[in-house]
């Protein structure tokens, strides 16, 4: 087999490299090209489609293309945030795979000069009745906890689903959020001829060589062989690196900074060079190594964790090195900026690679892969009328996709940093205060792949709207989003068709909701054998609450006697709800339409209602439908509900449809008239559902007929036990 094919390049790609160089690349050069031209690093299949997404907005300070996106929150402060996948490594070695995913995304945030203040994780696994899935799930959670807890960044939110399609290919998407003084924002730029290039942090070993290439292939059944492609994380080292880098940035005289992630020294040097339009010369003999006898090929491709590349103003390198030494870290001048446009690599006094940075970055191939838009088949119907609503509610509350997630988030330190105002489990999004201001930010990830699989375009809209609503119910105004697009093999037209449709849906949603995309990550090849995962766009979103004192909306019902209202128009489609799956299995029935216009009105309305003191709580309708949402707000407030209203829908449709864009709010009776007037004036549909009671009772009557009467405490026990029982 030709060498380039072993490294993941096609014959045509190899031919292009030879043509560009006008010579054959040597082995080091070929390795560098192969990793930079891998799907993981080059985005060659997704690039032309990603361009369609809106990336500009009044709050956007930094859009896609940097280590992380940044939005402006006023007071001279910005929020840097990004999400990234670590799916392939986590499938092979769940603890280290997840841990290093967390480590990598943290480095992207502090490379911007931001102090990381929160982590989120979006996780997908197969069903928990498989021992292998339980192993992956518990390992991934422990890995996230092991890294995040040790480094001392709180893991405050996320989402997790258990669906058959992820059995062989779990998804681990990690998001980090940081705060930065905008005047101190840093970029990953290499410039200034003669400026020294410093490699700081951990030593370089043989781990993770060709990790980027590995992440650009389907997993094989013998994926265990790829275990050496998985890196090992050292959160203690990263904590030192984080503190030292921020201290060095505070000292100043740093031109640019970038982490060494996928494709290690090769990608960090070429990407920094490309952004600064400069050349870089590297002397590999100076790189502190973990093991003897490493070749230049291995050093350039190593994905050893906890390393950063810094470009420093000439003459200040000794002072910067001193800061790293204070933290007992390596810091070595490994090269310098040159006037050319080339990455020149020296080893043992010889030039072992000389490649124009353009070849490694902008000259990487871009493919418009053939795609086939999936056909939407709404062929069947079900009759849910025979299902007992009380029984359905009990089963749904303990369904692992709905039940309380404390098994997960109690393993995460979610309070370190003393900023966590709304902790996991207490609302639809986490809320953190911004010390020294009245402000708070709300953060959340979302993306139910099941809806996307059955209707990619609507499913993508749903993911964006749901994330936005999850922020809005806390009183926040969405500022921007980052996305992690997880798909199967893009070389298959039907997978590429899913991708194209998802981008179209996201574009619509971002434009109508006015939420720009500030960056993200694409993960293809999430398939094993013939089985691809559900197409899963994960949306990570950040929103702002101007004044936590007056603007923060709780999820829990607050006071006995408060009236409960539903905002938004329920339509009753059961398509792809947990109810449908629970009682009818994988049936192709219509999914609820995603009404972005109404969603936008609700997102704008909620903070307004709160500021005028008209609502006491808010919670969106999501997995499990209206009945489950009512229970969640009731459990959180330890108050019951009496629901009684008129509807033309079947009770099962009304209570268990998962239409996105519905929000339940509670209102003091004396404010009801004013509340109703304002909502009606905004054009949002509103229905009075019932009231909050002080009893241990969840009672739901529709059209005068009682359909559910259960004890609150009994339902709560099911909700709290569901996930743990599924693990036994």
């Amino acid at each position, binding site marked *: 087999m030709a060498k380039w094919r072993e490294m993941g390049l096609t014959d045509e790609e190899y031919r292009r490299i030879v043509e560009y160089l006008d010579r054959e690349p040597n082995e080091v050069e070929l390795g560098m090209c192969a990793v930079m031209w891998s799907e993981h690093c080059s985005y060659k299949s997704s690039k032309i489609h990603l361009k369609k997404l809106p990336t500009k907005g009044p709050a956007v300070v930094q859009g896609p293309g940097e280590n992380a996106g940044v939005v402006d929150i006023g007071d001279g402060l910005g929020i840097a945030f990004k999400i990234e996948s670590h799916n392939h490594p986590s499938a092979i070695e769940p603890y280290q795979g997840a841990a290093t995913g967390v480590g990598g995304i943290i480095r992207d945030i502090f490379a911007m000069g931001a102090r990381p203040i929160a982590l989120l994780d979006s996780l997908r696994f197969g069903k928990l009745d498989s021992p292998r899935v339980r192993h992956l799930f518990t390992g991934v959670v*422990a890995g996230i*906890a092991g890294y995040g*807890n*040790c*480094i*001392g960044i709180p893991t405050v939110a996320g989402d997790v689903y258990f669906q058959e399609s992820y059995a062989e290919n779990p998804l681990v998407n990690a998001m980090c959020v940081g705060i930065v003084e905008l005047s101190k924002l840093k970029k990953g730029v290499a410039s200034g001829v003669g400026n020294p290039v410093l490699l700081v942090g951990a030593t370089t070993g043989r781990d993770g060589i060709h990790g980027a290439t590995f992440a650009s292939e389907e997993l094989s059944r013998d994926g265990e062989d790829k275990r050496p492609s998985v890196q090992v994380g*050292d*959160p*203690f*080292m990263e*904590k*030192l690196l984080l503190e030292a880098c921020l201290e060095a940035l505070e000292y100043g005289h740093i031109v640019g900074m970038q982490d060494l992630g996928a494709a290690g020294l090769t990608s960090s040097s070429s990407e920094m060079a490309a952004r600064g339009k400069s050349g870089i010369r590297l002397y590999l003999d100076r790189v502190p190594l973990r093991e003897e006898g490493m070749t230049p090929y291995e050093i350039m491709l190593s994905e050893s964790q906890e390393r950063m590349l810094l470009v420093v103003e000439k003459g200040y390198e000794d002072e910067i090195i001193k800061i790293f030494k204070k*933290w*007992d870290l390596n810091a070595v001048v490994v090269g310098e900026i040159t006037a050319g446009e080339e990455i020149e690599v020296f080893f043992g006094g010889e030039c072992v690679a000389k490649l124009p940075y353009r070849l490694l970055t902008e000259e990487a191939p871009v493919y418009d892969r053939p795609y086939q838009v999936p056909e939407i088949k709404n062929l069947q119907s079900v009759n849910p009328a025979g299902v007992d609503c009380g029984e359905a509610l009990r089963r749904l509350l303990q369904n692992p996709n709905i039940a309380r997630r*404390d098994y997960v*988030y*109690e*393993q*995460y*330190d*979610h*309070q*370190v*940093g*003393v900023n*966590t*105002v709304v*902790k996991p489990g207490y609302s639809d999004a986490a809320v953190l*205060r911004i*010390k020294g201001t009245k402000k708070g930010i709300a953060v959340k990830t979302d993306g139910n792949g099941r809806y996307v699989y059955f209707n990619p375009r609507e499913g993508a809209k749903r993911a964006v709207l749901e994330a936005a609503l999850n922020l809005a119910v806390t009183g926040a105004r969405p500022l921007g989003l980052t996305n992690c697009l997880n798909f199967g093999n893009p070389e298959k037209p039907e997978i590429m068709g899913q991708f194209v449709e998802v981008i179209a849906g996201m574009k619509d949603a971002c434009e109508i909701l006015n939420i720009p995309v500030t960056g993200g990550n694409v993960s293809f090849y999430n398939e094993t054998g013939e089985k691809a995962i559900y197409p899963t766009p994960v949306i990570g979103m950040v929103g702002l609450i101007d004044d*936590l004192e007056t603007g923060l909306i709780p999820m829990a019902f607050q006071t006995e006697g408060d009236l409960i209202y539903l905002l938004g128009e329920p339509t009753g489609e059961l398509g792809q709800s947990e109810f449908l799956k629970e009682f009818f299995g994988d049936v192709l029935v219509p999914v609820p339409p995603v009404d972005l216009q109404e969603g936008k009105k609700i997102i704008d309305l909620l903070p307004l209602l709160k500021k005028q003191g008209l609502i006491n709580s808010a919670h969106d309708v999501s997995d499990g439908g209206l009945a489950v949402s009512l229970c969640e707000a009731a459990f959180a407030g330890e108050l019951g509900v009496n629901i009684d209203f008129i509807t033309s829908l079947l009770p099962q449709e009304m209570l268990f449809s998962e239409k996105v864009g519905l929000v339940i709010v509670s209102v003091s009776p004396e404010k009801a008239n004013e509340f109703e007037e304002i909502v009606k004036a905004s054009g949002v549909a509103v229905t009075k559902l019932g009231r909050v009671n002080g009893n241990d009772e969840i009672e739901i009557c529709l059209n005068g007929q009682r359909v559910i009467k259960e004890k609150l405490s009994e339902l709560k026990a099911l909700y709290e036990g569901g996930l743990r029982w599924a693990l036994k």
Partner: protein
Amino acid sequence: MRFGVVVFPGSNCDADCFHVLKNVFGRETVYIWHKDDSFDVDCIVLPGGFSYGDYLRAGAIARFSPVMKKVVEFSEAGGLVIGICNGFQILLEAGLLPGAMLRNKSINFRCHDVYLRVENNETPFTNKALKGQVLKIPIAHGEGNYYCEPDTLKRLIANGQVVFRYCNSRGEVTEDANPNGSLYNIAGIINEKGNVLGMMPHPERCSEKILGGEDGRVIWESIIAYLERGANRG
């Protein structure tokens, strides 16, 4: 009155303790670097975190740092020392408090609110609390399962050295209320002399209303009151 928060490599609650003392209570507070071998403060805080990564055993390496030699001298001279979470583990490893910390009974790291009963309010750290008062304070640890020899436990109890025990919201000390399998539901102990406290829960995380609880304040208020009475300076 000056507080000193020790920063070990891997400390991660140092800034939180600093924030509470400086910004919430308005007290002069300084960081003390682990390589420092002198300081001039009235109370030392050993904060939570993963000092030196805690790859060996929580707190096992930190006790050899230069600053700990001085912390031992400071405590011998009567200076106040409070160790929280990893700080408690370091105090045990350094021999300033008796006993050892084992892995949580549940194996997993646990982060959630617990209830503590104040067993002894005649200490510099609890003088503003009532005896038997129930405090709601969060924990966040994987190794908080306190253990000591039976004779040591007897002595701790007899001397009133058990300061906090895990209990339920009604103040009853039960097995269910014990989050980590800790012996005798111990959450915090003091040395015989009464100037060194170690506790697993994090009072700095519940000293501001906006964070959902203020039960941690009583510990800081007690220390401040004690120091204001002009007691011993180390």
